[in-house]
């Protein structure tokens, strides 16, 4: 789905999964140990593991890693060459489009309005870069789907679970300022205490 803030990418302990500026969320197959955290945090469990391949075989295969995770990479290599993703190019009905985010979002809204339809992917998991437009409500679409490994469903309004950590994360980013402010305040207090002590002792001596 190439989410706006993809937990599958940000939570990878080796940063083998990354969201590029062009929007593509791509797993580096040479860096992935197949730990499947990305699958766990994805509401659709889109990343799937191919066991028995990858870099983990060359490290500690019995103790860490289990293969390589795979997901759609938006044909990122083709995008770099200025080509369209394979699926977009191959579809005989031109059912899929790719383009600048604003244009695609506007087009999706317009199509949805015209067919009195529905959009999926705009708000799901905190927003994605993949929009589905359908005249059939997605509750009904989802009801026909059965979530299985490699077969995601289309449940409406799935939450971005990692959003729960955002508030604490922001507090972490503020922690350096907190520490510095407390340090400066503490040091000034110490300085003024020392000054008043010195004055006192001067008075005594005087």
């Amino acid at each position: 789905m190439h989410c706006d803030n993809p937990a599958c990418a940000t939570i990878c302990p080796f940063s083998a999964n990354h969201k590029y500026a062009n929007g593509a969320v791509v797993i580096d197959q040479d860096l992935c140990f197949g730990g499947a955290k990305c699958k766990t945090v994805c509401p659709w469990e889109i990343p799937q593991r191919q066991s028995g391949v990858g870099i983990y075989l060359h490290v500690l295969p019995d103790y860490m890693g289990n293969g390589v995770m795979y997901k759609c990479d938006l044909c990122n290599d083709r995008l770099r060459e200025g080509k369209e993703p394979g699926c977009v190019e191959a579809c005989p009905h031109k059912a899929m489009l790719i383009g600048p985010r604003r244009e695609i979002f506007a087009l999706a809204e317009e199509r949805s309005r015209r067919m009195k339809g529905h959009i999926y992917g705009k708000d799901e998991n905190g927003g994605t870069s993949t929009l589905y437009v359908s005249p059939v409500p997605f509750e009904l679409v989802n009801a026909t789907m059965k979530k299985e490994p490699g077969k995601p469903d289309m449940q409406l309004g799935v939450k971005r679970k990692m959003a729960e950590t955002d508030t604490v994360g922001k507090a972490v980013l503020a922690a350096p300022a907190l520490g510095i402010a407390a340090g400066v305040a503490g040091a000034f207090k110490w300085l003024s205490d020392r000054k008043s002590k010195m004055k006192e002792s001067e008075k005594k001596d005087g």
Partner: protein
Amino acid sequence: MAEKIIREKGRVIRHDVVELVEHWAIALSGLALVLSGMFEMPMASRYYITSVPGLAWSGDFIVSLSVHYAASIVFVAASLFHVVYHGMRGDRGMIPQKGDLRTSIEVMKSFFGKGKEPPFHKYLPEQRLAYAGMVFIIAMLILSGLVKTFKNVYAPDMAYAAVLWATWTHNIFFVLFVLAFMAHMAAIVLKPNRPMLRGILTGAVSLDYAVHRHPLWIAEIEGAKEKPTQAVDPAAEAKDSAVEEPAKASATGAAEEPSGEAAVADEAASSESDETGKDKV
């Protein structure tokens, strides 16, 4: 400085409350970070850590990330407080000095019965070196951790090179942090260092220990006073003849030091050992 000799109780105040709070805030949050950081690897479920009572949360990456974040607020704030507070006060006792590497090798040899320890300031030369190493490790962990946090919250599409740098710096320095922590624990297990454990738990070490092992520090404290007190309270007499050895060594070692500070220490140390010697007789 809150450093003070309390002769009637046979103690020297080594750390004030602020320092104790700093140390334990960094230590405990650091341990929480190590643990929750390890749970950020997909290992808790694989190795049945989730079945350990109280650690059921370890298999949930979102929960362990929250714990990691919460602990890092304490860790980051305490670390920066430490640098700013002591930097502004001009505390330099833990900054490595010239010759620390050579001296610390001598000290380590002395732990294994080869040669004698030189007299110490408040901190051992290896403590100063370890401090510098730990500062570097913690600085790198904090810097890379902040980059990772910023990426998680605001910028998932940050330049990949920056993300890879932050991730691998964080992972590598995590390993170094754990090794440094184990070395820290090993150091406190060594018999000559054990009296310092009381220092980091209560803030005070025994005067007897300090006089014998840290004569330069004691001399500093006494030098800071206007009227230096002369002899030690009988309560502070040496109870263990084993600790008397370094005192003699320190006296001779200090005598070789050309600085004025060391000369004071020499006096203090030798008067100490004379005192205790008389008492023994």
